[in-house]
């Protein structure tokens, strides 16, 4: 019996219902739409659908999606980092379980329903609008729903727990002794945070950014509920090509482009961060007897073959490492 025998059912299931359909979409993307009633044809292959998908009308939506993706991820990081730090370091240990549970509740509330909650809050006739008018902050009804700002609020809200949780895990793992050592060696609290806590939490930051950015870019629901015509995202374009326009070839090309944009952005982002932090990392390098999490994250132990393959991805490897280190 081969070593992977037990994994064959899952493998087969995913090949038949994930790899095959996605491969078919890639194949469709090289075809065209034949006439009004056809959805796709592949007798002539070309890159024309990709050119079409990047024509000015659709290109605006791609740029819009990228803007929301980057701004949303940055906001999640800025908002989530202090919260995660507070939960892991400042809050009393006895209350941490409760705080984590509280972050999980919105995360596990139906995505569509909590987005509808924001639609109710942001509606021009909603209570926020009434409140702000009553206080005198704005003159007319709140004009936020169905704009790009509304989509941004929605995605920051929807993906924030995915940023807080890995950051919390990372801060929690740094532990008190290293912070106290830093303090004993004369560093202030800001210096300790910048030179000890944050560098050691790097895997958590990487995981959080990826966990937020990747699904955010493919988001369909938030933009549908809060975006209207002004806050369009690529997910809606793809959906409309399949559902209303019945142009599967173009929709497929857009789907493939969406994945490519996500991959290229992650790669570029990783490169930029790597280059920018290079001088800091060489200067800040400190070698303890057994390097803790930060270094271990890049080179998982040899016993776990799987980990090494994930090192360049971060999202999964960063979060899986502790088990391997612990074992």
């Amino acid at each position, binding site marked *: 019996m081969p*070593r*992977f*025998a*037990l*994994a064959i059912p*899952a*493998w087969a*299931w*995913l090949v038949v*219902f*994930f790899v095959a*359909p*996605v491969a*078919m*979409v890639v194949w*469709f993307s090289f075809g065209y739409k034949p006439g009004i009633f056809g959805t796709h044809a592949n007798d002539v292959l070309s890159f024309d659908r990709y050119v079409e998908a990047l024509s000015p009308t659709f290109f605006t939506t791609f740029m819009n999606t990228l803007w929301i993706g980057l701004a949303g991820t940055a906001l999640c990081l800025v*908002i989530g980092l202090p919260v995660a730090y*507070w939960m892991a370091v400042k809050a009393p240990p006895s209350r*941490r379980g409760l705080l984590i549970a509280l*972050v999980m509740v*919105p995360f*596990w*509330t*139906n995505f*569509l*329903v*909590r*987005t*509808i909650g924001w*639609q*109710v*809050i942001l509606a021009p*006739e909603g*209570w926020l609008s009434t409140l702000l008018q009553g206080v005198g902050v704005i003159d007319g009804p709140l004009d936020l729903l169905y704009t790009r700002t509304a989509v941004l609020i929605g995605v920051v*809200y929807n993906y924030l727990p*995915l940023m807080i949780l*890995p950051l919390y*895990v990372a801060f929690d*793992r740094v532990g008190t002794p290293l912070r106290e050592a830093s303090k004993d060696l004369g560093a202030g*609290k800001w210096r300790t945070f910048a030179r000890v806590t944050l560098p050691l939490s790097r895997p958590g930051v990487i*995981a959080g950014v990826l966990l937020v950015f990747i699904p955010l870019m*493919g988001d*369909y*629901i938030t933009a*549908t509920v809060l975006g209207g015509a002004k806050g369009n995202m690529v*997910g809606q374009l*793809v*959906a409309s090509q399949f559902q209303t326009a019945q142009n599967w070839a173009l929709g497929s090309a857009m*789907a493939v482009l*969406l994945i490519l944009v*996500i991959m290229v952005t992650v790669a570029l982002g990783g490169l930029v961060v790597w280059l920018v932090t290079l001088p800091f990392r060489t200067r800040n390098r400190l070698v303890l007897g057994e390097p803790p999490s930060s270094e271990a994250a890049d080179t998982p132990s040899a016993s*776990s*073959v*799987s980990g090494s393959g*994930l090192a360049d*991805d971060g*999202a999964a490897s960063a979060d*899986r490492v502790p088990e*391997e280190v612990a*074992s």
Partner: protein
Amino acid sequence: MKRSWSDVALSVWGVLVFLFLFAPIIVIIVSAFNTGRLLVAWDGFGFDGFIALLEKPAIRDAVWVSVQTGAIAALVATVLGTLAGIAMARHPGKWVFWFIGLLLLVSVTPEIVDAVALLPWLVFLGQDAGLALFNDGVVRLVVGHSLFATAVVSYIVRARLVGLDAQLEEASSDLYAKPLTTFRRVTLPLAMPAVLAGFLLSFTLSLDNTVIAAFVQVSGTTPWPVYVLSALRSGLRPEIASVSTIMLVLTLVALGLVAFVLRRAGDSATQIARTMTGN
């Protein structure tokens, strides 16, 4: 000890963000008791929305379809994921690298791409390939919901077993237990907390799934989130909030069970958090 201003600022920020996280949920729960015609406009307090669940067959059916497909999809994902997770943890090799690559691909592909890919594929299987099974609404939903869930269960089960020594299984086979007996009496019980957690997580993931469901569903078997999505176009009534509140309670009970199972198995709060986010 006097608290520094930065500590105070952190606490204030933490509380504000928690308020932000709960704002729309509170709004939905409050709206559940709205007796008006529209969700947005508050009319009066009452239980009309909850009664709709009993009175409107469309809503009742949608909820039932969701619960049914959720349970079946969770079962499929748990069986597939548990076997795969055990294989990865106990029979490592070069193949694990490729397999995890596949699981990662499944988890990072945008849902909308899965959705538009599955629709023509299921139509192809059901009509062109003549497998009538795939014209069934429940089967389609189960397939769509099980993909990501299978990856999640695989991760969780693998993570748990990697953290446990294989010596128990070795001892079992040294004592002349057949491989199947060892699997049933030693490996599976060791993995059980992760298996249960994986099942419940898959169930809630499935209850939540909107995008794939909206594409692969056939009329007659509309799950609850897709019903809400279509109500979005025709006007949201308070009953949407009422039923969503019930579903939220159901989800929280399932997650409470996950936390309970994991805690019984000796996990810390941090480990529970990691497991429950699918890592």
